[in-house]
């Protein structure tokens, strides 16, 4: 029998992952209510609630140039890559086990390793059982969209309220550079014709979901030189059709992954390119910045993987009393929602007070990007141990969270993958565009290399709250006269 764990609300390394007003601005009350405790969609909720994915859908009906169906490595942490395929029964058992152990678990997603809707029997059997046995868990699904229109009725029947469609283009000529083939009407179709069918199905599916009142998020993979400019049009169109969020993710391409893009030398976007595109799209719609491209079968809070506690043999040995667990879960939820509500109200009040202050002359000093090695909202991680950095933009009017930068994105290191780039080089690479990196401690060698790369290391604010520290450093830079001019572009290389 599983003893429900004492509610625990820690989990994110950031103190505040950006203003929820910014994230939720422009959403209707109905949508706001739907996403307010969704860890992937609501920035403040991901401190309190968690999601998990189950790998029940192995087959795919299209090929993308950034995917290699052969690749399934234990070190892999790209999205959509998982190791352990589950049957629907096993997936249901795993979900109930996790939900009974971790009351924060509020969302169950099916995302891969193939396309969930290309495996309709397995996907819908999992949803059907869960809707019945665990009505307190939200269900969501990600798809490439090809089979979406024919699945909308069934999705609505299982009370799925979140669907993510990966839409990389709306122009078949762009699509032909991303998708080599699709399987359609019992044939393999190649090239531009394939892309045209896929795009039409995605758009039709999006419209049908919106008409049914099902929330739609759109994911796009930013592929430099292929769809970078084009994604601005995609963003406009999907918003006009009623998608509530557009999430632009960077392409991850390396030769060792064996993908078309990896082998053909297609480069991944630099962090500053990603941010520029996200900024360009943000004017049009809600952008999701705190997405960490989590491993598809990750269990636990965003960015934290508890999958090892729930392997198949461990789950088989568990005896779950879900009725009892649901009581604990409901209590946790009530407490968490009350805390969230209080925090949101506090924030609203703070912003109202600001609004009543008379506008002072436009303050001097340009905005600066700073990276922070954070833990639980404080500057608490050693530079060399940080697996990811939180990036903030500091300016006269305050500190804004802009995103995460991962260091060890693809594999465990040199020995396993034979990758020549050291962890230090990767860290510096990942921090492109940042002028300062705050950490609790840092070694002499990395200090020197960071400085050489134009990034100022700063270890003076160990254990201080992240946003306070960033603001202090910005004010120091302002006082030192460093913020009157544009930084040289060299460091963005």
């Amino acid at each position, binding site marked *: 029998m599983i003893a429900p764990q004492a509610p625990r609300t820690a989990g994110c390394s950031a103190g505040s992952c950006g203003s929820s007003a910014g994230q939720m601005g422009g959403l209707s009350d109905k949508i706001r209510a739907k996403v307010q405790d969704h860890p992937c969609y609501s920035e403040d909720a991901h401190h309190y609630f968690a999601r998990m994915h189950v790998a029940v859908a192995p087959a795919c*009906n299209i090929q993308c140039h950034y995917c290699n169906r052969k690749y399934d490595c234990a070190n892999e942490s790209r999205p959509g890559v998982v190791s352990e395929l589950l049957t629907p029964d096993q997936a249901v058992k795993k979900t109930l086990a996790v939900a009974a152990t971790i009351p924060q678990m509020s969302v169950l997603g099916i995302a891969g390793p*193939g396309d969930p809707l290309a495996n309709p029997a397995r996907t819908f059997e999992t949803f059907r059982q869960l809707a019945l046995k665990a009505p307190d868990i939200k269900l969501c699904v990600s798809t490439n969209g090809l089979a979406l229109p024919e699945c909308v009725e069934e999705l609505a029947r299982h009370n799925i309220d979140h669907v993510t469609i990966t839409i990389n283009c709306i122009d078949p000529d762009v699509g032909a550079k991303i998708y080599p083939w699709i399987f359609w009407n*019992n044939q393999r179709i190649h090239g531009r014709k394939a892309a045209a069918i896929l795009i039409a199905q995605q758009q039709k599916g999006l419209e049908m979901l919106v008409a049914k009142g099902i929330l739609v998020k759109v994911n796009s993979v930013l592929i430099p030189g292929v769809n970078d400019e084009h994604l601005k049009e995609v963003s406009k169109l999907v918003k006009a059709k009623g998608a509530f969020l557009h999430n632009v993710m960077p392409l991850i391409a390396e030769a060792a992954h064996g993908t078309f893009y990896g*082998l053909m030398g297609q480069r991944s976007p630099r962090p500053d390119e990603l941010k520029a595109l996200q900024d360009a799209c943000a004017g049009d719609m809600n952008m999701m910045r705190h997405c960490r491209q989590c491993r598809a079968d990750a269990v636990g809070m965003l960015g934290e993987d508890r999958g090892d506690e729930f392997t198949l043999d461990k789950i088989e040995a568990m005896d779950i009393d879900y009725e009892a667990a649901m009581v604990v879960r409901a209590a946790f939820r009530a407490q968490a929602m009350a805390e969230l509500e209080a925090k949101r109200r506090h924030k609203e009040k703070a912003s109202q007070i600001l609004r009543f202050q008379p506008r002072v002359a436009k303050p001097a000093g340009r905005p600066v990007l700073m990276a922070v090695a954070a833990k639980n909202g404080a500057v608490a991680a050693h530079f060399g141990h940080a697996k990811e950095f939180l990036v903030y933009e500091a300016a006269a009017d305050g500190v804004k969270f802009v995103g995460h930068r991962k260091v060890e994105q693809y594999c465990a290191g040199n020995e396993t993958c034979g990758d020549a780039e050291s962890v230090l080089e990767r860290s510096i690479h990942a921090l492109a565009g940042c002028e300062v990196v705050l950490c609790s401690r840092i070694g002499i060698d990395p200090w020197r290399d960071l400085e050489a790369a134009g990034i100022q290391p700063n270890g003076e604010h160990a254990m201080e709250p992240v946003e306070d520290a960033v603001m202090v450093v910005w004010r120091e830079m302002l006082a030192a006269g460093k913020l009157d001019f544009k930084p040289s572009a060299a460091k963005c290389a």
Partner: protein
Amino acid sequence: MALEIIESCVSCHACLALCPSQAIIETRPHFLIDAGKCSGCLGDFADAQCAAICPIEGAILDEFGVAMNPPGSLTGIPPARRAAAQAEIAAR
């Protein structure tokens, strides 16, 4: 007439539900085709369904042992390019 699945199959399940003759066997280390059941999809579909969806070049052979999806036909990666990259990665 029968097709054959060989060891490069990644057990992705894609062919399983499509086969009109229930000839695909879900087994380890990789899927197989029951030669006695496989009709080559004749009379059901213009294209052999398993070969039309399989994402892995070379995983399915025709009755003469020739790859239904030869190297480069699905991924668009020229075989020479892949071989060079593989050699380079192996040499590290």
